[in-house]
């Protein structure tokens, strides 16, 4: 059974994108993410049991989040890509499936301000707790009165 048949069987809407490195990147809907990851993780054939990274991107019109999955059984990689709005960006947390999602999602929240629903401890991880704004957004400009001692 091929990969795409498998996804079709489970009724998951996807479109394939080819990456420069030749890895498989699947664009899926935001709502399907948790279900998709669950079947990919629990399936005996594919068994993507490891989440390597969660990467957020600011594409000016929307945010993209890239999930890199890895199978320790077949040693293959798979990337899932979802899109979310710029205003009030939110997506379901993968913490219930992969515990490595914890810090990756916190980092994504920290730098891009994407809210991960049902994350157990969604707070800043890299920046100080009371930092204002999310610095990796394209429209971010740093204007914090408290940091006047660090002006150039």
């Amino acid at each position, binding site marked *: 059974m091929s990969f795409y048949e498998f996804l079709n069987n489970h009724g998951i809407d996807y479109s394939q994108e080819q990456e420069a490195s030749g890895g498989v990147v699947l664009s899926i809907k935001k709502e399907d993410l948790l279900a998709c990851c669950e079947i990919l993780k629990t399936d005996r054939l594919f068994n993507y049991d490891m989440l390597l990274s969660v990467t957020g991107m600011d594409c000016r019109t929307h945010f993209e989040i890239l999930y890199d999955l890895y199978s320790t059984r077949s040693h293959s990689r798979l990337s899932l890509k979802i899109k979310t709005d710029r205003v009030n960006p939110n997506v379901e947390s993968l913490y219930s499936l992969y515990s490595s999602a914890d810090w990756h999602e916190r980092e994504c929240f920290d730098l891009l301000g994407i809210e991960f629903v049902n994350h157990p401890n969604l707070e800043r991880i*890299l*920046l*100080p*707790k*009371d*930092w204002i704004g999310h*610095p990796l957004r394209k429209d*971010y400009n*740093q204007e*914090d009165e*408290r*940091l*006047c*001692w*660090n002006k*150039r």
Partner: protein
Amino acid sequence: MQIIISALDYVYNWARSNSVWPLTFATSCCGIEMICTSASKYDIARFGSEVFRPSPRQADLIITAGTITHKMAPALVRLYEQMPEPKYVIAMGACTVTGGMYENDSYSVVRGVDRLIPVDVYLPGCPPRPEALLDAVIQLQKKMRTETLLDRKKYIEAHKPRVKMPEGDSELLLPCDEIEIVRWGV
């Protein structure tokens, strides 16, 4: 009286300039060069400084080896405050001298540790070679030898941190009102 003071100064300066114990503090790639400096080819032990103390209570010198970010800054200031007098600072590497390649538009990097704590020796380089760090240590020893016991109070007054520790839930350092920050160059 003057003779006694100067004799005492000589002994005091001789002793402390020859046993500068640095704090084990490395935040970035300069730390690797610092390790190299204490390893066999360059050997900082020749100057009696190989005793890298893990605890700030026993250190005389803090070598800020590497980029200092806003998140790290309170830790650095606290470590500096925990060191007993007399204490010295070597700003090692471009990042801690001016902010280095992060100077222009980084949101997270402190532009030079001299905005946080008073620096005695600036050591540019990205990262500086071990010879350069040895030179910085020697320059610091020279500086120590010029000081006297009489000026110690003035010295301690001048060696206060230039920022206030964060208050309450905040994690950001606050500017200190009393001390004016003098910046040279750009």
